[in-house]
């Protein structure tokens, strides 16, 4: 009997140690399926711009971190249910999301773009190089009109619950036949198979895919920013008011927001964000 008691006690102690060791770690949720922002290598290890940035920010904060994988469509609910403390998953800061969670300052700019397979009749669309929906103006309106005409009757594919879906359904480009997918990988597959006439996502998601798969995926039309596309990508955090600002959990959430903002400031000043952006995107997307 004695050996069982000892074994049980040992189990309890080790359980206690693992729990207490995890208690003060910052858990960061990412998708691991949106290269080059975040993805997985062949061995299943999380890699990408945000994974490296997360480790860097944790060093600035001076706390240990755990990076947790979470499907995109459950990202915000998982944060609210405290499966992790922060989202770093290429999530743009939008007003719609701000109703339910809060964001740190932005750390990187994400520009969206349409993509087609080489040889599509959408190639050579005459639009400015980039449009900012927040600025508006006749140039933007003209470009949106061109795009509305080009997308009419086409199947446009995008990932579920993204700014890209919001934009396509906003009416800015008319009534579009939108098809939504669980991951960007699925969008890429159906773009190359021809089920999708055109796809919308972060421009780098397409260029990265074209480069790695060797498939002739090309960007068309302008790059989009502002408006439905939000104001850059930031760390998604719980609102301290979710559990009450005076509660221990609420205070921890508020402290995390401060810590991330400060860490992003420092990382920017030291050039860490720019360096990582150039490494993963090929250009400086820091902000």
């Amino acid at each position, binding site marked *: 009997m004695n050996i069982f008691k000892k074994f049980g006690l040992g189990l309890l102690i080790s359980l206690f140690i693992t729990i207490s060791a995890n208690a003060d770690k910052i858990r960061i949720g990412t998708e691991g399926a949106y290269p080059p922002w975040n993805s997985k290598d062949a061995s299943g290890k999380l890699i990408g711009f945000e994974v490296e940035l997360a480790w860097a920010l944790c060093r600035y904060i001076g706390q240990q971190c755990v990076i947790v994988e979470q499907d995109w*469509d459950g990202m915000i*609910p998982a944060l609210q249910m405290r499966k992790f403390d922060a989202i770093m998953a290429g999530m743009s800061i939008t007003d719609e999301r701000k109703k*339910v969670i809060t964001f740190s300052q932005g750390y990187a700019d994400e520009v969206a773009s349409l993509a087609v397979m080489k040889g599509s009749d959408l190639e050579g669309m005459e639009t400015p190089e980039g449009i900012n929906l927040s600025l508006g103006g006749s140039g933007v309106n003209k470009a949106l009109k061109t795009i509305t005409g080009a997308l009419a009757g086409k199947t446009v594919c995008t990932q579920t*619950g993204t700014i890209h*879906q919001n934009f396509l359904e906003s009416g800015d480009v008319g009534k579009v036949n939108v*098809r*939504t997918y*669980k991951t960007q990988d699925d969008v890429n*597959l159906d773009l190359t198979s*021809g089920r999708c006439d055109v796809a919308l996502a972060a421009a780098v998601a397409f260029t990265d895919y074209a480069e790695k798969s060797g498939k002739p995926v090309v960007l068309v039309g302008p790059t989009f920013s502002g408006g439905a596309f939000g104001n850059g990508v930031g760390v998604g955090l719980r609102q301290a008011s979710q559990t009450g600002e005076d509660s221990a959990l609420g205070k921890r959430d508020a402290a995390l927001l401060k810590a991330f903002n400060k860490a992003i400031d420092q990382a920017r000043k030291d050039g860490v964000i720019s360096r990582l952006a150039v490494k993963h995107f090929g250009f400086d997307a820091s902000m």
Partner: protein
Amino acid sequence: MDFDLIINSFPKLLFASITTLKLVSVSLFIGLFIGLFFAILRIKNNIILGKIAYSYSYTFRGTPLLVQIFIIYYGFGQLEFIRESFLWAILKEPYWCAVIAFALNTGAYTSEILRSAFQTIKPGFIEAGKSLGVPNKLIFYKIQIPIAIRQSLPAYGNEIILMLKGTSLASTVTLMDLTGVAKYIISTTFKPIEVFIIAGSIYLFFTFIIHNVIKFLEKKYSF
């Protein structure tokens, strides 16, 4: 609990369940014929045809439905010769990919259900027919098939319910069925509990109806 959300999303989900019901009924209809065809191959004493039918049911019962859908939808879509063949007109559409996967899957299970039903028919029934001079064809259509259908009712009722729940996988190939629309609402409201509870209740309601219809039929055709 957000009751406004529950009230607002209920009609949308109810409307989406039409797609779900369409998927179930079309797949079950096609699957029943596939199942009957392969069950007959199994009970005829032909070794080669029996083996073919067996490997079909073995393959489709031995692999997950999700994998089958993915192979038919994403897998075939990557093959050049399929994209260039006449099949692409059908396989291009997510709806038909889902129906093909569901029908082949339920067909495999149905063939097993019907086969065992045929095999449990007491030889006396067939012998009685033979001794009265009834032709073999008529014995098959008028004696074996009706008895087999009655025998397989409880198991087939289960299969219908499993299929109803299986169609929730259609949302993985972009179809906006009950689960697909539920996920869509969640992606904009970020409230999974409320939406999935309603979606679950709608599935439960359909199961309730199917269950009772089968029970009624079992009573009616009992002997």
